Every structure is written in C-alpha cells, then in structure tokens.
C-alpha cells in the first residue's frame, strides 16, 4: 500500500496542518489590525519614518482594540446572565 501515508505520517501531517492553519489565522488577524490601526493612526502623507506619536498610536490601537473585544464579551455575558434572572453564570 504505497498509495497512502501510514498512520503515523497521517497523524504527523494532521498536526502540521493544524499548526499551519493556526499560523495563517494569526497572520490574518495581524493584517486586520494593521489595516484598522493604519487608518486610525497614519493620516498624513507617509514620510521616511514614523513619528513617535504614530508609533505609539499603532501599538495603543492594537491594545485598546483587544481591550474592546474583551469588554464587549464581558458586557454580553452580563446581559445574558441578567436575562436569565441572574441564576446562570457563564464563565
């Protein structure tokens, strides 16, 4: 049966694919953040280097975007818990 990979190889490839997919997802997220934060922070004509304020805007932008995302999740969980009469807690 030379046509198929043996079981160990199949497992190895499955693990490899999962890692590559995770990396691709990570890259996509970074591209997404870069787009959002570029639009917010880089407003003038691009020069030969970033100003200090543009640089810190970019990294603050990422941090606050992530904070926002966590905040939203927490809010929605609170609302859902309230709608359930406060009896169910989602963690």
């Amino acid at each position, binding site marked *: 049966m*030379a046509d198929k990979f043996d079981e160990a190889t199949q497992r190895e490839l499955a693990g490899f694919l999962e890692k*590559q997919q995770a990396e691709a997802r990570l*890259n996509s997220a970074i591209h997404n953040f870069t787009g959002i934060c570029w639009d917010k922070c880089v407003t003038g004509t691009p020069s030969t280097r970033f100003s200090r304020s543009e640089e810190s805007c970019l990294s603050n932008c990422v941090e606050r975007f992530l904070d926002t995302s966590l905040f939203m999740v927490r809010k929605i969980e609170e609302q859902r818990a309230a709608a359930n009469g406060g009896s169910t807690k989602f963690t």
Partner: protein
Amino acid sequence: MTDFLSGIGKSSGPGDMATRKEAVMTAVRNEVALGNAQQLMNSANERCYKACVTKPGTSLSSSEETCLSRCLDRYMEAFNIVRRTYMTRLSKERLEDQASVVM
C-alpha cells in the same frame, strides 16, 4: 495549489513516503507564505493608493512614486509594530491564564 496533490497517490516504494510527506509540507508552507504576502500587498496597495494618489493623472508622477515607496515601507513597519504588540499581549495573557489556573 493543485500541483502538490497530483504527486501524492502515485508513488511505488515505501521509501519515498518521507519524500512525499516533505513535498506536502513544503507546499503548505509556501501556500501560507503566499497568502500572507498577498494580504499584505492588497491592503498596502489600497491604503498607499489612497494616501499618495489623490488626483489620478495620466501616469504616476515621480512624487507619487516616492510617496508610494515610502508608504509601502511604512506599511510594513506598521505591520511589524502591530505584530510585536499583539504577540507580546498574547504571551502576557497566556501567562495570566496559567496563573489563574494555578490559583
């Protein structure tokens, strides 16, 4: 994309299973790298066009080209700043997660 799949089912000896495995892995790695480069080019292109070519003429002027090449450099720099910030945040939260599991 399909090239690497065509070679998979056709080999004869057990010895080249490792070779085929490597071929699949290399193809997947290339695919991920290509997708990454395409995403970068697409968004840099869109944003640098917006920033540098405000009144499209009959051809790109030299000042527009200067702007575009600076913009591309800045976009890649922005990508790296964002990546560094995000990765630092991820590893910080992973540490906090572990700490809260222990407690």
